[in-house]
C-alpha cells in the first residue's frame, strides 16, 4: 500500500503538535490573481495537506488573490472560496472540496451504503474519501477501514479516492454494501524518491533515478537483497555466479561497466556505507538507484559507478500494528549436467581408450561386476553427483515487526531470522537481524531520529572450499569420481585415484573434510538531530541538523581442514586401500582469524526549502566526515589429535611454511563538503546544481582534494498552457530532462605516495639453521596519483498517458571515465624489473546506453486489475585508452573495443581427413588427430600461435538487460510474474584458468582429470561414426590442442528467465473481522524463483563462472509463505 508515501510525507513534516495537524498548521500565502488550483498546489507543496476534488464540479480555474500570514487552513480556504458554493471537509491532512448540492438535481430515493476499503493486499485504508459523483456529499473511512454513507441515490456513482492510490468509480446500482479494493497508482508523479542526502518528489527529479518499494522488492523470499533486485531496476545489471548459501549474492553494476578497475556501485543503507546483503529485506522501505552524475555527483569521489540507496522502514502514527511473516523455501539446482552411470562410463571409456590405441581399459570382469554386482563390494554403479546433492535445500525465514506511534513518537521495530540449508550437506547460512527505528519530537521543532540495527550471521561450509577453481572442491571431486565403485566400502566412504596419486572422495570431502565457519556480529547505529527554524518567520524553511553513525563489526573466521582417510580404489592396480585424501595433511590444519573494526560518519547539514510564489527553492549544504579502523588477528595450528573440540589450543604443532600468528591494522578517513540547489519555477522549469569537494587519505596531500559539480535541467511540458490547449487529455504528464556532472572513483591502494619497505610475512631464508625474516622494498614512490573522473551526460523523458494506461521513462546516457588508475608496464620491458610507476591515472573508457521503462496499468472491472512493467536497458563501453604492450598485434588491441572481450583462436572445424592434418600448421600444443580442432592461421605465417588470437566473443557482462513484470489481481487473489533476461554477452566453457594455464574443463573434455564425463559431451564427441560432432575427438588423453581458448568454447550467454512467480491470496477482511481474533490481514502465497530458464547451453546455468570444473550451482526455489498483521 501507499502508506509508504504517507509515512515519508509525515517524516519530513515540519511541525508536530498535540492537536490535529489541520488545527495547528499555520500557512503563509501571498498570491495575486492566480488560479485557485495554483494556490491549492502551493498549499500541498508547502504543507502536508492534499486536496481531493472533482474538477468538473469545483471551479479551480477561478482567479483568486489571497494574502495570509500564519493562518490556519480553514481560514485560508474560507478566504479562497468566499462567495462560491464550494465547501470543504478537512480530515486531518486530507481535504475534500465539493460544492453545495445543486437545487436543480432531481431528488431520487436514497439508500445507505456501507462497506470497507482495502488495498490490493487487503491492508486497511483509513481516511479514504468516498464522494457521490457530481456532488459534495461524501464521507471518509474509519480506522477499521469501514465507511457508511447515507442518502446515496440508487443510481449514483461513488468515487473512492486516497492519496497514492488510483481513484475508483463504482456504480451503486442499488447495492447497500460495497467493498472496494484500491490499487496503487503505479504511475504516480507525486511519488517521493530517495536521492542523495534527502528525498524529492519524483516530478521534480531531473536526474536519472529508479526506485522500488518494499512490495516490489520482496516479491518472493530470497536470502539477500541483491538477489531481490534482479530485473526490477532498469539500468542495474545483476549477475549471480554461485548458489552457495552465504555466497549466493549477485554482483551489481549500474549502467554496465565504465572502468576496467572496480566497477561496483556505492551502497548506502540509511545514508551510511554498509553491506547490502546483510540487511533484512523485510526492513527495507525502498531501494533507490542513482544512475547519472547529476544524482551521484553529491557523493564525489565514490559516486562514479552509481549509487544504491537503501532506506529502512519508519514508524507510523496509530496504534501498534504487529506483522508476522514466515516462509519456507525448497531449493534445487537450476541446471547440472547428468554424468555417465557405471555401465555407460565403461562403454565410453573403453571406446575412447580404443580410439587412443590403448586397447580396452576395463575388462569384461569389471563390467560384469559393475552391472551385476560385486561380491567383494568394490564395484557398483554410483551416481556421485546425485549422492552429493541432496533432494533439496530448505530455507526458512521469519520476521516479526511492530510499528505505531503518536504524532510525537513513532517506532518501527523488527526481528528477522534466516536459516538457509544448502543442497549439499554441511552447507548452511543463518542470519538474525534486529532493528529499531524511532522518530521523536524531543522538543518544539526539535526532532530526533534514531536508527539502531544489528545482525549476527553464521556461515558454515565444509573444510574444502567450494570455489570453482579450488583444488579438490567437492563438486569437482564428484565430477571426477568414477561411477563404477560403490560409494561406501566396509562402512566408510570410498575414494578413488587414477594411480595412487590424487585421492578423491566427494562424499568424504563434504562429511569429513572439516569446516569453514564464519560468524559476524555487527551493530549499525545512526542518529539525526534536526532543528526547524520555521517558527522564526524570516528563517522559515531553514533546518539545521547533525547526522552521525557508528557501525561496529566483529568477525570470526574458523577454518579447519581435517585430515581424513578413505578406502581408496586404485584404478591402476584395481585394489582398495586406506589412504589419506589428497589436499589434506596429517593432523589437519586450523586457522582462526578475528577481526574487529568500526567506522563512523559525522554529517552536519543545513537545509533551506521555501516556496516564493512560483519559485520553489530547495537547498542543502553539508559536511561529511568518515573514519574507519580495523584490526585483524589470525592464528594457526595443525596436528589435531581429537576431532572435537577444534580450536587453536588443541593443535599440537605449528604448520610448516606459514606463520602461526599474524595480524594487521588499517585505518582510513575522508572528508567532503557537498551541496545541492534545486530550483523550480511554476512546476514547469526545473534546475538543479550539485557539488562536492572531497578529500581522501589515499592520495598524496597535494592530490587529495577534488571538486565534483553537476547541473541538471528539466522542463515539464505538460504544465505548459500551450500544451494543455493542444493536448486532448491523453497526456497527463510529460517531462524532458538533461544533466551533466562529474564524479570519481578512488579504487587504489593507499600510501603509494610514501616510501615503502615491507617485512616479509614469513621467513625468507635460513642462516645457521634458523629461518630469518627479511625486509624488502615495496613499490616505487608514485606521488602523482589521484582518482579517476567520470563525466556523465544524461537526457531523459517521463511520460504518463491515459491516466496510467501507459507510462514511459526513457533515459539515454553517455559517460566518459578518464584518468582510470591502471597498472603500468605493458609498454615497459621486463628488464626494468618494475622500476617505474606501477600505476598511473591513464586509462579512459566511454560508455553509452539507454534505459526504457514502459508501464501499463489497467483494471478490467472492479475485481480484475493488472499491470505490466517492461524494461530494456542497454549499455556498451569502449576502451579509449589503456596500457597495452607496444607492438601488440592488431588483433589483440583492446583500444576501441569493449572491456573484457574474449580473445582466442578462431576454431574453424574438426579435422575430418588425413589431408587436412597433413596440410595444416602444427598444433599450438598437443597433437593433431582426426576429430581435433582446426584453428585458423589468421596471419598466414604457417604457424598457429598467439599471434593468431582474434576476438572470439563479447565479455561476460551483458550489454542488454530486459525484464517484464506482470501483475494481476482478481478479488483477493493476486498473481505476479517477473521475466528477466540478458543478451549480448558470452562466456567460455574452457579458457585460461586463473593460474594462467590453458586447459580444458570437465564440460569440454570427456574424462577430464581422469574423471567422469557428462552424457551430452560423450554423445556428441567426434568418433569415426559421428564425424559431424559438436565436440572434439573422444579420447582418454588430454590434448593441449583442444584446450586453447577458442571460438569453439564460447557460448552465447543470453538467457530468459522466469525469475519470480508469486500467487497469493488475502483473506477477505469481512471474514477476518467476523472471526474477530484481532487479525487485520492474513495473506498466504506460493512463489518461486528461477523457475524456467531458456539459454543456449542448457546443461549449466547461463550465469555460471567461466572456466570451472564444477561449482555450486545457482538454485531455483519453491516457497510457501504467509503474512499476518494484527
Amino acid at each position, binding site marked *: 500500500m501507499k502508506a509508504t508515501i504517507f509515512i515519508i510525507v509525515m517524516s519530513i513534516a515540519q511541525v508536530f503538535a498535540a492537536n490535529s495537524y489541520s488545527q495547528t498548521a499555520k500557512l503563509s500565502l501571498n498570491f495575486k490573481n492566480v488560479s485557485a488550483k495554483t494556490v491549492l498546489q502551493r498549499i500541498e507543496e508547502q504543507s502536508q495537506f492534499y486536496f481531493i476534488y472533482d474538477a468538473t464540479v469545483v471551479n479551480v480555474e477561478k482567479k483568486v488573490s489571497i494574502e495570509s500570514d500564519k493562518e490556519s487552513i480553514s481560514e485560508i480556504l474560507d478566504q479562497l472560496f468566499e462567495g462560491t458554493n464550494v465547501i470543504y471537509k478537512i480530515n486531518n491532512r486530507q481535504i475534500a472540496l465539493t460544492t453545495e448540492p445543486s437545487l436543480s438535481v432531481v431528488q431520487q430515493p436514497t439508500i445507505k451504503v456501507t462497506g470497507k476499503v482495502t488495498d490490493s493486499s487487503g491492508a486497511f485504508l483509513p481516511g479514504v474519501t468516498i464522494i457521490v459523483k457530481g456532488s459534495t456529499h461524501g464521507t471518509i473511512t474509519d480506522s477499521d477501514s469501514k465507511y457508511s454513507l447515507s442518502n446515496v441515490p440508487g443510481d449514483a456513482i461513488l468515487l473512492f479516492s486516497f492519496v497514492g492510490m488510483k481513484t475508483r468509480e463504482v456504480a451503486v446500482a442499488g447495492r447497500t454494501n460495497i467493498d472496494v479494493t484500491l490499487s496503487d497508482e503505479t504511475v504516480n508523479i507525486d511519488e517521493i524518491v530517495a536521492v542523495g542526502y534527502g528525498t524529492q518528489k519524483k516530478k521534480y527529479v531531473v536526474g536519472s533515478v529508479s526506485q522500488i518499494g518494499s512490495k516490489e522488492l520482496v516479491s518472493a523470499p530470497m536470502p539477500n537483497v541483491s538477489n531481490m533486485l534482479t530485473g526490477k531496476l532498469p539500468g542495474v545489471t545483476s549477475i549471480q555466479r554461485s548458489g552457495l548459501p552465504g555466497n549466493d549474492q549477485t554482483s551489481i553494476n549500474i549502467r554496465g561497466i565504465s572502468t576496467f578497475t572496480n566497477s561496483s556501485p556505492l551502497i548506502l543503507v540509511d545514508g551510511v556505507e554498509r553491506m547490502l546483503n546483510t540487511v533484512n529485506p523485510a526492513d527495507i522501505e525502498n531501494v533507490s538507484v542513482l544512475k547519472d552524475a547529476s544524482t551521484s555527483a553529491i557523493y564525489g569521489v565514490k559516486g562514479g559507478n552509481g549509487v544504491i540507496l537503501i532506506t529502512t522502514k519508519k514508524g507510523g502514527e496509530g496504534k501498534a500494528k504487529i506483522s508476522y511473516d514466515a516462509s519456507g523455501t525448497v531449493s534445487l539446482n537450476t541446471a547440472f549436467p547428468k554424468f555417465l552411470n557405471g555401465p555407460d562410463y565403461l562403454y565410453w571409456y573403453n571406446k575412447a581408450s580404443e580410439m587412443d590405441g590403448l586397447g580396452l581399459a576395463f575388462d569384461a570382469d569389471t563390467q560384469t561386476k559393475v552391472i551385476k554386482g560385486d561380491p567383494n563390494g568394490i564395484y557398483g554403479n554410483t551416481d556421485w553427483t546425485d549422492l552429493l546433492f541432496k533432494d533439496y535445500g530448505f530455507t526458512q525465514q521469519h520476521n516479526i515487526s511492530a510499528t505505531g506511534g503518536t504524532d510525537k513518537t513513532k517506532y518501527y521495530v523488527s526481528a528477522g531470522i534466516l536459516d538457509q540449508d544448502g543442497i549439499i550437506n554441511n552447507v548452511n547460512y543463518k542470519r538474525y537481524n534486529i532493528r529499531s527505528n524511532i522518530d521523536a519530537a524531543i*522538543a518544539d521543532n526539535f526532532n530526533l531520529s534514531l536508527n539502531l540495527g544489528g545482525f549476527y550471521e553464521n556461515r558454515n561450509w565444509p573444510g574444502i572450499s567450494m570455489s570453482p577453481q579450488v583444488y579438490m572442491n567437492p563438486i569437482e571431486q564428484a565430477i571426477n569420481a568414477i561411477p563404477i565403485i560403490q560409494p561406501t566400502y566396509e562402512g566408510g566412504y570410498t575414494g578413488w585415484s587414477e*594411480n*595412487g*596419486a590424487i585421492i578423491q572422495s566427494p562424499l568424504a570431502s563434504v562429511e569429513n573434510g572439516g569446516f569453514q565457519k564464519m560468524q559476524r556480529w555487527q551493530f549499525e547505529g545512526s542518529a539525526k*538531530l534536526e*532543528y526547524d*527554524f520555521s517558527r522564526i518567520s524570516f528563517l522559515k524553511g531553514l533546518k*539545521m541538523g547533525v547526522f552521525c553513525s557508528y557501525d561496529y563489526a566483529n568477525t570470526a573466521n574458523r577454518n579447519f581442514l581435517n585430515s581424513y582417510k578413505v578406502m581408496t580404489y586404485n584404478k*591402476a592396480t584395481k585394489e582398495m586401500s586406506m589412504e589419506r585424501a589428497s589436499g589434506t*595433511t*596429517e593432523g589437519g590444519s586450523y586457522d582462526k582469524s578475528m577481526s574487529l573494526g568500526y567506522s563512523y560518519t*559525522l554529517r*552536519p547539514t543545513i537545509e533551506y526549502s521555501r516556496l516564493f510564489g512560483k519559485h520553489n527553492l530547495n537547498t542543502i549544504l553539508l559536511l561529511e*566526515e568518515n*573514519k574507519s579502523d580495523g584490526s585483524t588477528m589470525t592464528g594457526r595450528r595443525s596436528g589435531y589429535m581429537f576431532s572435537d573440540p577444534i580450536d587453536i589450543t588443541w593443535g599440537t*604443532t*605449528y604448520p*610448516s*611454511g606459514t606463520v602461526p600468528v599474524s595480524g*594487521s591494522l588499517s*585505518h582510513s*578517513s575522508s572528508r567532503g563538503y557537498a551541496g545541492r540547489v534545486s530550483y523550480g519555477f511554476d512546476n514547469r522549469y526545473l534546475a538543479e546544481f550539485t557539488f562536492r569537494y572531497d578529500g*581522501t*587519505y589515499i592520495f598524496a596531500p597535494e592530490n587529495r582534494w577534488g571538486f565534483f559539480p553537476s547541473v541538471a535541467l528539466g522542463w515539464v511540458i505538460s504544465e505548459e498552457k500551450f500544451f494543455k490547449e493542444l493536448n486532448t487529455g491523453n497526456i497527463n504528464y510529460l517531462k524532458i530532462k538533461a544533466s551533466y556532472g562529474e564524479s570519481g572513483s578512488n579504487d587504489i591502494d593507499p*600510501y603509494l605516495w*610514501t*616510501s*615503502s*619497505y*615491507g*617485512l616479509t610475512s614469513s621467513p*625468507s631464508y*635460513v*642462516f*645457521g*639453521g634458523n*629461518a630469518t625474516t*627479511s*625486509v*624488502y622494498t*615495496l613499490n*616505487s614512490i608514485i606521488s602523482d596519483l589521484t582518482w579517476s573522473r567520470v563525466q556523465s551526460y544524461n537526457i531523459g523523458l517521463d511520460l504518463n498517458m491515459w491516466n496510467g494506461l501507459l507510462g514511459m521513462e526513457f533515459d539515454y546516457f553517455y559517460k566518459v571515465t578518464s584518468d582510470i588508475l591502471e597498472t603500468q608496464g605493458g609498454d615497459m*620491458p*621486463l*628488464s*626494468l*624489473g618494475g622500476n*617505474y*610507476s606501477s600505476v598511473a591515472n591513464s586509462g579512459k573508457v566511454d560508455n553509452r546506453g539507454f534505459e526504457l521503462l514502459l508501464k501499463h496499468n489497467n483494471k478490467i472491472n472492479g475485481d480484475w486489475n493488472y499491470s505490466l512493467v517492461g524494461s530494456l536497458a542497454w549499455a556498451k563501453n569502449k576502451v579509449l585508452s589503456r596500457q597495452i*604492450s*607496444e*607492438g601488440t598485434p592488431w588483433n589483440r588491441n583492446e583500444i576501441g573495443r569493449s572491456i573484457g572481450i574474449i580473445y582466442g583462436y578462431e576454431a574453424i572445424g574438426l579435422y575430418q581427413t588425413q589431408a587436412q592434418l597433413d596440410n595444416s600448421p*602444427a598444433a599450438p*600444443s598437443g597433437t593433431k588427430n582426426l576429430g581435433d580442432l582446426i584453428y585458423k592461421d589468421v596471419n598466414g605465417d604457417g604457424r598457429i*600461435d598467439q599471434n593468431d588470437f582474434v576476438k572470439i566473443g563479447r565479455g561476460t557482462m551483458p550489454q542488454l538487460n530486459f525484464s517484464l513484470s506482470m501483475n494481476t489481481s482478481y478479488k483477493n487473489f493476486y498473481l505476479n510474474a517477473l521475466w528477466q533476461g540478458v543478451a549480448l554477452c558470452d562466456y567460455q566453457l574452457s579458457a585460461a584458468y586463473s593460474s594462467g*594455464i590453458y586447459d580444458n574443463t570437465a564440460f569440454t573434455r570427456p574424462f577430464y582429470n*581422469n574423471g567422469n564425463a557428462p552424457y551430452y559431451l560423450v554423445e556428441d564427441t567426434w568418433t569415426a561414426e559421428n564425424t559431424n560432432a559438436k565436440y572434439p575427438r573422444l579420447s*582418454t*588423453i*588430454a590434448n593441449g590442442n583442444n584446450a586453447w581458448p577458442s571460438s569453439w568454447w564460447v557460448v552465447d550467454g543470453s538467457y530468459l528467465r522466469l525469475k519470480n512467480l508469486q500467487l497469493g491470496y488475502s483473506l477477505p477482511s469481512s471474514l477476518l473481522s467476523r472471526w474477530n481474533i484481532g487479525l487485520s490481514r492474513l495473506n498466504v502465497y506460493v512463489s518461486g524463483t528461477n523457475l524456467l530458464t531458456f539459454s543456449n547451453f542448457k546443461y549449466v546455468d547461463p550465469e555460471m563462472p567461466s572456466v570451472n570444473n564444477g561449482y555450486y550451482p545457482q538454485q531455483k526455489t519453491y516457497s510457501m509463505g504467509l503474512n499476518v498483521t494484527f
Partner: protein
Amino acid sequence: MKNVYLLMGVIAMSMMVSCTDLDLDATDRVSGAAVWESEETVDAYTTGLYAHMRDASELYSNNLTDCFSDILKSASWDQYNHTYNKVLLQVDYFSSINAGPLDKWGNYDRIKRQNEFLLDAPTKGIHLGDDFIKVRIAEARFIRAFAYFEMARVYGGVVIRDETDGLDGRKEKDKARATEAETWNFIINDLQLAAQDLPVKWTSEWTGRATQAAAYGLLSRCALYAKNWDLAVEAAKNTKTAGAKLITSSYANVFTTPLESNSEVLFAVSFADPIVHGFDRYYRPSGDEDVYSAASPTSELVDSYEMADGTPFSWSTHGTDPYSGREPRFYASILYNGASWEGRTIESYAGGADGLIEWKPAGATTSTVTGYYMRKYLQEGNDYLKNQSTQFDVVIRYAEVLLNLAEALAEQNFSLNKTTALATLNEVRNRVGLPGITEAQAGDKDSFMSFVRHERMVELAFEGFRYWDLRRWRLAVSVINGKTAHGVKITKNPDHTFRYDKIDCDGGLTRYFDSKYYLMSIPESERLNNSLIGDNNPGW
C-alpha cells in the same frame, strides 16, 4: 530558542570530537630511514636479497633441470606443471614468446632490488662502518652475479641493468643487449669484487651467507661459460686458498655433513621450518606413503657408474647381478631394486612395492618409469609428510670446482697442463676410491674431456649440471636429439632371481633438441618494449 542553542551545542561538540585527519600514518609498511637504521635492519634487508638464492634452488622450486637431460626422466606428462617431457618430446615446444620453463628473464625483478641495495648501501649504510657495509655490498654482488649467471646460460647476452648510473627507470627503458662476452665479464667483475670483500667464514649464527670460497667457486664456473680458461684456473686455485677442501670420508657425507663444518660445500641453500621443500614427498620410491615418485634416473646415468675397481659397467658382464660391486657414488645416488631403504628393500621389479610403471604421454606416472629412484638428497628416516624436507641444496661445491679446473686446464693447453689436469680429475675419482685416469687413457684433449664429462655426469648427478653442461659444450643435439632414454624392466623369476630387460621409457617417442635451443629467445615482451634490444638469438 533554547533548542537552537542545544542544537548549536551538539553540532559544535560533534565537530570538536571529530578528528578526521587525512594525513594518516601507514600501519602496514616501513619507512626508508628505518631500514638503514641499524646492523640488524640492514642484515634483515640483506637477508631479503638471499631469497633469490632460495628461489633458484632446484629442490625448493621442484624444478630438477636434470629432467631436461638424458640422466633423469620425469614421470609427468601434463601434471604438477612439469613440462620436461613436453620440452623433450614435442617438436618446437619452445616458441619465441619466451623461454618457457627455462625462462629467467623474471630475474630482473630481483636484480632491481639488488641494484637498489647497491645504490643505497654506500651512502645510507656508511654510518654502520665501512667494514660492515662493504661485506653486505659484496654479498649483494655475489647474489646479483648469480642472477645474471642464470640468465646468461639461457640467453647468452642480456641487458645489463646495474646501479652505476642510478637505477634504470622509465627513461632508460630502451637499452641495448650486451654481448654474451660482455655479460660474462659483468658477472665476473661482480664476483671478483665480491670475492675481495667476502669473509672466509661466518659465525655459526650466519652460516649459509656467501663466503670468499663461494665467490671464487662460482667464478670458476662462470669463467668456463665465458671460455676464460686462465680466469677459471685462477679462480679454482683461489677457491682452494680460501679454504675449500674435499670431504674424503665418503661421498655420501658431502650431502649430510652440517654446513658449518662442511669444507666441500661452498654455498648451499639451507632449509629449516617453515622454509622447507618437498623433495622427499615428490621423489621417494613409490612404496613409501603418499609420494609422487616424480622422476627416475635413466639407464644412461645408472649404467655409467663404474665398478668399484674402475672398470666400466656392462650388462653383458655384470648383467646377472648388476647392482653389486659398483663405485660408492652409485650407492649414494641411486635407489635400485634390492637396495636397502629405511629398513626395507626396494622392490622396483614389476609388481613390487616400488614397481615400475611404463611411462606414457598422459597424466603422471607415480612410480619409477626406469626401474630406479634417486637417493641423493632424500632424507632417510625423515617424517616428510609432517615436516617435508630440510635437506640443504648444494649450489657450489669443491668437487665441481676441481672438475672446472680440470676442464679449464685442458682447454687452456692440454699438452702443457696434462699432468695437473689429470691430477685434478683424479682427486675427485680418488676420493671415492676409483683409480685415476692415466695419461695413456687420456692421450689428447678430446679423450680427456670425455673423462671429464663422464665424471661431471656421475659426480654431480641430480645437482642441476647435466642439462646446462650439455648446452655449454654444445653437445645437447648429439646427446638428446633423436634419442630415447632407457630404463630397465625387472621381472622376478619364480626362483627369486631377476630378469632385466632394457626398455625405452619415452613412450615410443623420440627426443628433440634443436641447435637454436642453445640460446633461447629473448622474451617477446622485452623485444616489443625495448627498442634497442637488437636482434633476437639465432633461429627465433
